[in-house]
């Protein structure tokens, strides 16, 4: 698999032609969106909750330094080791150092986008430490050696048949396509891993500043086991994950489950404050790695800052008409869809991902569904502007808009241009915009423009 953002257009065409993929996507997305509407509409104060969540995030990001220091202080008091990493490299080094010191051979991982972001699993494996994804969806994509195609439903692009074949091939089990049986197979294999793991690696959905808590939200119980059984727990979180108060969680829990998986409340929540020495289970050492990796770059820009409010629910992806049709892999980034088109260019290189901000019809569905009210579609507009400023758009396009501006700035030129186009089309020479006309007819200019009609027929009525 060689998916990169540069190849968005090629990937998109391929995805559109892949009927199986389209069917898998449509089924999963329709299902979740329908259920989401149900569990959202039963709350009379959904809009208030969105605004509250937005304001809490906005306040926190405006004072991020303060809250991170507070979190650090409390976490250290609770006996948690706090590490700061400016990039993926530093974060990976921290992990390998801890793993080597503990002579770790096996790591279990619960679902975490930030570890995907820094390629942690691959890095540990290269260093000879077996690292297993324990979330079922992640386990499936790990087996298939693929990227997750959605941030909360990583294997959404696969059908049960495909997963059944994958299990039979990679795990040597008897072929079955029943979700119950496939899940039982995964449970059995992963249970052994849990019991023997030296280190549990997790992400964090929230970090609570006032109590120094690490908060993880999940449904399968794998995060619970990851953070309970191994003697060492390493949590990695982007610096934007901190929230001020424990009570803020009550707001985020209401919106996160509904937005991510169309649930009123997720099955499990772990709120972890401290390691437990000499207790029957629970890690004796907990590390939290606070990762920047481009986040402070977003924070420097007033326009991009709101992207840091994102709670990684993935709702904008499901609601996006483009994502719905091309799927997550097309974007070539672990953060696909609308919010991904904001994060990928700004965090991982604008030049490589310059196409992504343009891959949107700007319909605004992403903003409409976003539980923390990020104006994603407007940020995409801004990024298009940045692409132009950074000189990343085509020469031809630039010339077209220069000429267009000249003719639109001056009504005489505008009228002259329109007459010229009428003439050209009359003698049958109008340009063929192949990208439009291949699938759609383009209208002719009207015989008479409105302004002409106005001048000749309408204007006098108003005198």
């Amino acid at each position, binding site marked *: 698999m060689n998916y990169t953002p540069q190849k968005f257009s090629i990937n998109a065409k391929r995805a559109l032609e892949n009927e199986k993929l389209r069917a898998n996507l449509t089924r999963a997305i329709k299902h979740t969106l329908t259920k989401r509407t149900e569990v959202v509409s039963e709350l009379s104060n959904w809009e208030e909750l969105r605004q509250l969540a937005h304001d809490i995030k906005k306040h926190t990001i405006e004072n991020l330094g303060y809250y991170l220091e507070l979190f650090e202080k409390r976490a250290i008091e609770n006996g948690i080791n706090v590490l700061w990493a400016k990039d993926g490299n530093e974060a990976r080094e921290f992990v390998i150092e801890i793993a080597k010191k503990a002579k770790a051979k096996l790591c279990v991982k619960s679902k975490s986008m930030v570890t995907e972001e820094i390629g942690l699993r691959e890095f540990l494996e290269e260093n000879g430490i077996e690292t297993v994804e324990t979330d079922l969806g992640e386990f499936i994509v790990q087996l298939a050696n693929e990227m997750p195609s959605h941030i909360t439903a990583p294997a959404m692009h696969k059908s049960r048949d495909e997963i059944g074949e994958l299990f039979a091939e990679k795990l040597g089990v008897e072929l079955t396509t029943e979700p119950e049986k496939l899940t039982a197979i995964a449970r059995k294999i992963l249970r052994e891993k849990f*019991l023997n793991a030296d280190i549990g690696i997790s992400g964090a959905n929230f970090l609570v500043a006032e109590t120094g808590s690490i908060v993880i939200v999940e449904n399968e119980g794998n995060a619970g086991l990851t953070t309970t059984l191994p003697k060492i727990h390493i949590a990695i979180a982007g610096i934007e994950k901190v929230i001020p108060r424990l009570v803020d969680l009550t707001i985020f829990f209401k919106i996160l489950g509904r937005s991510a998986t169309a649930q009123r409340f997720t099955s499990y929540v*772990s709120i972890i404050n401290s390691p437990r020495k000499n207790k029957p289970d629970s890690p004796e050492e907990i590390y939290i790695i606070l990762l920047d990796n481009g986040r402070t770059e977003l924070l420097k820009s007033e326009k991009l800052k709101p992207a840091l409010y994102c709670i990684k629910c993935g709702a904008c992806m499901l609601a996006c008409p483009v994502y719905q049709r091309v799927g997550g892999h097309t974007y070539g980034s672990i953060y696909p869809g609308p919010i991904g088109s904001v994060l990928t260019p700004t965090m991982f290189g604008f030049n490589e991902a310059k196409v992504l901000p343009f891959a949107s019809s700007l319909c605004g569905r992403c903003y409409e569904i976003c539980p923390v009210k990020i104006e994603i579609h407007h940020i995409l507009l801004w990024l298009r502007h940045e692409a132009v400023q950074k000189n990343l758009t085509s020469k031809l396009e630039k010339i077209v808009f220069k000429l267009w501006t000249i003719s639109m700035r001056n009504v005489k030129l505008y009228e002259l241009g329109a007459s010229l186009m009428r003439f050209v089309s009359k003698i049958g020479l109008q340009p063929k915009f192949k990208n439009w006309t291949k699938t759609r007819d383009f209208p002719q200019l009207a015989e008479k423009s409105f302004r002409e009609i106005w001048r000749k027929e309408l204007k006098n009525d108003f005198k």
Partner: protein
Amino acid sequence: MNSREQILKLLKQHQTNKTPLPKIDTTALLNVNLVEKFKFEFERVGGIFIKTAFNRIFDEISKIITTENLRKIYAENFDNEINAIIKNLQVDEIITQPHSYRQISIVDASITSCDFLIAETGTIVFIHRDEKFKSAVLLPRVHIIIAKEKQIVGTLEEVFSISGGNFDSIFLITGPSRTADIEKVIVQGVHGPQKVYLIIV
């Protein structure tokens, strides 16, 4: 300058403090029968709710043992009366003092207490600050919780205001372990329990 200082310096440069931290009004559940509300929400997420008198606990657990075909059980240390009830259950083995979580991983079911029950969402709250096995609520296929009606509160906010920040960890359970990772088909019992029974006395 190390990464910590670098990050913090930059963040402080961009500190704006324009937006106040919003106040969160406590949304107590008013005019709601907490037991009924809890039962409704808990059953809706797939939990099995059993309300019973104290002298019926033995029978209720025995029924579960039969239905679920439970052979080995781990039971937490309750008060003497409940301990006595558990001791008499008809199963092959009852583990009450495991030396490691490995022992809990081979039982069919665990019987534990809990700290609170949240009516708004049908959530069971476990607050760890003692010697209990955390993993007992996750490892076995069946989880049986014995609780008292007075442990039901309205909302999570109430739990937070009672517990403060003084805990090792809090674990919230809302129904059985579940996934929808394969074609959005809901499967219970991925890594945690497939069945969650709540016996409320």
